[in-house]
């Protein structure tokens, strides 16, 4: 039987991602990428049972559908082709956890390009759904490579707008904007400061605040009395390892 002492960094990050969805109720939980996938499903399997989530193709499974085992038995509760996903985005009943190639202190996210967008040094995914997501519903980010190259002073392209852009935009356009949480391989971050600047919410076990500060190219709030990210419970470890991610898909992001 596994114990909490044996929880590995990928499992701690999965739980931190799951925690981002706490309190969301009956909405579409839409994480992107293996660690957030497992996290979202863990939230649904434990403390947020009313969430719905996609199989990443086109349906909502009602059972504990594992990541990385496409042929696993699936109880389908509804159909969400891409058009319906966009409709749900605009309805607001969604919380997405996206990746970010770059993020800044206001939560501006870049997944589009590195360098000048007119002729980028590196073309990335493109804007994808980030502009629409941010102005319509809650968004969180998962960043497995926390460094001064990803936590930057200024992003090259704003795909998903952060709090400074939203302040500029003002009401009513900013009313659905919330960047809830950023989970990295070093810690958990939020924007719970007076001016919505990024703050350390917790550092993962074994990580120091100095390490986080050094890996971040802007000044982080909340560097005093920093909490430690909580460990997975035995039930959570069982669900992660045996039920939700039996092939260890979550570990690929830590190699």
């Amino acid at each position, binding site marked *: 039987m596994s114990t909490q002492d044996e929880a590995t960094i990928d499992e701690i990050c999965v739980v931190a991602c799951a925690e981002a969805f706490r309190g969301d109720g009956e909405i579409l939980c839409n994480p992107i990428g293996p660690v957030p996938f497992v996290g979202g499903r863990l939230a649904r399997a434990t403390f947020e049972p009313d969430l719905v989530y996609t199989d990443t193709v086109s349906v909502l499974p009602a059972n504990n559908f594992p990541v990385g085992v496409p042929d696993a038995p699936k109880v389908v509760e509804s159909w969400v082709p891409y*058009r319906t996903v966009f409709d749900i985005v605009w309805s607001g009943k969604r919380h997405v956890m996206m990746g970010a190639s770059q993020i800044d202190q206001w939560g501006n996210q870049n997944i589009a390009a590195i360098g000048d967008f007119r*002729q980028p040094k590196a073309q990335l*995914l493109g804007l994808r759904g980030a*502009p*629409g997501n941010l*102005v319509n519903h809650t968004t969180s980010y998962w960043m497995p490579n926390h460094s001064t190259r990803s936590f930057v002073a200024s992003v090259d392209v*704003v795909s998903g707008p952060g709090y400074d852009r939203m302040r500029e935009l003002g009401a*009513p356009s900013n009313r659905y904007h919330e960047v809830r949480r950023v989970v990295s391989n070093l810690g958990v971050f939020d924007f719970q400061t007076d001016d919505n600047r990024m703050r350390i919410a917790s550092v993962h076990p074994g990580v120091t605040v100095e390490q986080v500060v050094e890996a971040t190219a802007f000044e982080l709030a909340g560097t005093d009395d920093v909490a430690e990210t909580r460990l997975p419970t035995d039930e959570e470890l069982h669900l992660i390892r045996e039920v939700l991610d039996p092939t260890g898909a979550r570990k690929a992001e830590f190699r």
Partner: protein
Amino acid sequence: MTTPKEAVLAVWAGLQERAIVAAMVDKRMTEDEVISELKDGMTIGIGGWGSRRKPMSLVRAILRSDLKDLTVVAYGGPDIGLLCAAGKLRRAVYGFVSLDSIPLEPHFRQARQSGAIEFTELDEGAFYLGLLAASHRVPFYPTRAGLGSDMLIMNPELRTVTSPYDDGEELVAIPAFKLDAALIHMNRADAAGNGQFLGPDLYFDDLFAMAADKTYLSTEKIVPTENLLDEGPVHTLRIQRIFTDGVVEAPQGAHFTECPPDYGRDEAFQREYAATARDPEAWEAFRSTYLDASSHADYLKALEARS
């Protein structure tokens, strides 16, 4: 002596037979006949999504034609990548370009990074509204998507509108994507151009068909109209022939993209394609083996000959 019921059934059978005959407008054509109707500088919409159910036999027919300076509008995958690599594009209009299992499309990246193509990069939901506006013949649809992000900076031609109602909210006006032609691939179709998708998602193919002046549909298999419901329920019949101008029968026509339930993505072939972006010699070999094939039938033979 026929009973009244038998008489009614006989009349019904006759009506059905005549109805079928009357419906059979025959729009069958070859890939090259489709491409001969396209012109330099046209704006062409391509259906599917990423590396999923793309009309690849039609895309390859463009590659081997003299067409140039095209603007392509798509939820982009290898269609945009191949057209970039072959120098066919003046502009790409997209929300993303991805091979799905390979997140970044390497040929598209090269074209963007070398400045070889012009581009219109939009939020992927906003992109849907551009298709919808063109389908409905209105100049734009409003959306909140794009406010606060760099979408409006990257696309200075985009305008905002103010709600005429009491809320006075400012929204982005996504302009209609007027398409000269659209290319889509369906699992099944009849010769008259009624199309059927049997996979998990139609994507936006019905909107591409409605948004375009001319729509050309390739299909895994042309079936008689009366057999269209043999393999899927009525709500899989999402492309109506009033929106189609040509039908091309192309088994494996979406290869190497996926076309479920007929076939999955050819991941090995896709990896081979992606690797050609790093190696001009590999690209030339790939091109001469697969892209220079003079017809879809020859392409299928080249596929069979793969070891």
